[in-house]
């Protein structure tokens, strides 16, 4: 399995996906540094604490708005053609006739993607939190930080599992479109929830919007994890930027649902892959 994990890492590095992402991330972080310095409110004497928290919350929300998208797209676009695309190209045929069980190939690829993209997510999380901390101070609750990091990183296995499952079912390009739209649906679910919280809406419509938002978030829980993570990092700060923060955050049950979603998608993908004809 080590051979397959190493081949996956090599693919991500040689195809320059990580390099391009890293360069663009550095550019973003430079801009984010400037934005954080501009928006932050440093009040040494501790007065206007609430406003300081609110601004910190806004900075974090901006950072993770970008971070969520980058991690999601990196996870989707690196793995969307891993099965169907490689089968169409004829790469898989020579590999799957080797004396290794198919599950080892599938698990090896999954581990390869999740480990490398997860490491990128970890670095991005630390960078955003550090820049925010420099300019606007940061929570000292390391438990919250650890949980937030785990929630942010959990996006990766959720997306990679769904993407590999889709790749067992659809063509390479078809799965790329499907996964992008699925992630977009989950993101839209969060937006619906925020709209419902911000705009004055009739109670009946509130209920309907809530159902739509929940269903969309359940269809792809990755963005919901991001929102839950931001809620933990900024709890108590309240609404500061319409449509970027606020709304009802996903619950703890939703986090368990997301974990179950990842396990189910991984298991179903593996089951299909073991039975697939190439």
């Amino acid at each position, binding site marked *: 399995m080590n051979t397959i994990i190493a081949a996956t890492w090599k693919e991500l590095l040689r195809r320059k996906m990580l390099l391009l992402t890293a360069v663009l991330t550095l550019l973003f972080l430079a801009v984010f540094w400037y934005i954080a310095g501009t928006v932050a409110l440093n009040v040494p004497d501790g007065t206007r604490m609430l406003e300081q928290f609110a601004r910190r919350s806004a900075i974090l929300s901006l950072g993770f708005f970008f971070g969520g998208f980058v991690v999601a797209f990196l996870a989707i676009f690196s793995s969307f053609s891993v099965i169907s695309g490689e089968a169409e190209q004829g*790469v898989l045929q020579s590999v799957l006739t080797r*004396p290794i069980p198919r599950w080892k190939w599938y698990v090896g690829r999954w581990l390869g993607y999740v480990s490398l993209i997860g490491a990128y997510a970890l670095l991005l999380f630390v960078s955003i939190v550090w820049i925010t901390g420099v300019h606007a101070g940061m929570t000292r609750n390391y438990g919250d930080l650890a949980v937030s990091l785990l929630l942010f990183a959990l996006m990766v296995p959720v997306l990679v599992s769904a993407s590999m499952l889709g790749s067992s079912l659809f063509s390479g390009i078809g799965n790329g479109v499907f996964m992008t739209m699925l992630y977009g649906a989950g993101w839209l679910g969060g937006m619906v929830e925020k709209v419902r919280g911000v705009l004055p809406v009739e109670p009946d419509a509130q209920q309907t919007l809530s159902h739509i938002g929940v269903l969309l978030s359940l269809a792809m829980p990755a963005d919901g994890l991001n929102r839950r993570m931001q809620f933990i990092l900024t709890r108590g700060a309240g609404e500061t930027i319409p449509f970027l923060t606020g709304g009802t955050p996903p619950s703890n049950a939703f986090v368990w649902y997301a974990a179950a979603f990842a396990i189910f998608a991984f298991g179903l993908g593996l089951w299909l892959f073991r039975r697939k004809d190439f």
Partner: protein
Amino acid sequence: MNTVIPAIQTHALSKIYGNGRGCRDITITVGQGEAFGFLGPNGAGKSTFVKTLVGLVRPSGGEGVLLGHPIGSLEARGRIGYLPELYRYPEWLSGEEVMRMHTGLLGIKSGDAKARIRSGLDEVGIGKRGSDRVKQYSKGMQQRLGLACALLGDPDILFLDEPSSAMDPVGRREVRDLLLELKKRGKTLFLNSHLLEDVEAVCDRMALMLNGDMIRSGSVSDMLKVKVRRRFKVGGFSPVVLDWLIAETGLPINLSHTAEPQDWEEPVWLEAELEDEHQAGRINALIVGQGMTLYETVNEREKLEDWFMDAVAGLDHRGEKR
């Protein structure tokens, strides 16, 4: 040839896809060290059958074993090398890295791997270009790399699906020589090829697939055991002589279709399907003995291509849905 455990044995092995295509009830036995050729037009089901044997496709029915192990099992896959028909290797790797990845998949220890990679690349003529990225390889080079990968684990059975289709004539000749060398080393070869001369040169036995069914099989020499066709260019000929020749020899002798003499002054071509050279000698003697002039004789042996065309002539052989 070790006939105790066949290298490949199938019984009514079938793979039918949802559209009705695939291969049906294929029963074959290939002995160890034998070279078996699989022929058929496009869409005949040859590649499906091979994919079923190497474990890429789950059979719809029947069974098969490779060296006593069920097809698709790890034990069976550990004894084979496979060159797929349509394949590419990751473009971001070099030829050596592709080989190294496959040594890892085969469980070859890193100490042995380096030497095997070097000799494998040399054997197929890639040599020092092994350090180049695959994206810089021509199709022929990629096919050579595929062959090197297939040979990497020193397999007992080699499944080769169109092994030299992308190569130039020199490359084809080299691959053919390599296959003959592998055969000498006792490897079992299962060759799917449109290049009939490869099958004719390398294989001991062959089978013909058509629309998913195996319609003929046997040894190459038996299947090509068409009588020698001999042509005789004769001057001073008359139709009465033809009847006399047929009566004297008891052989089917005809005037060539291309000959349409208006008078019998010009030489004509006679044709006869003969069992051996002695029959040709007797006809020669009879022609000369009658005072006719024998200008020349031509020997025409049927080639596999003629056999193939005859076998599929008049049949629906484009893989249309039944």
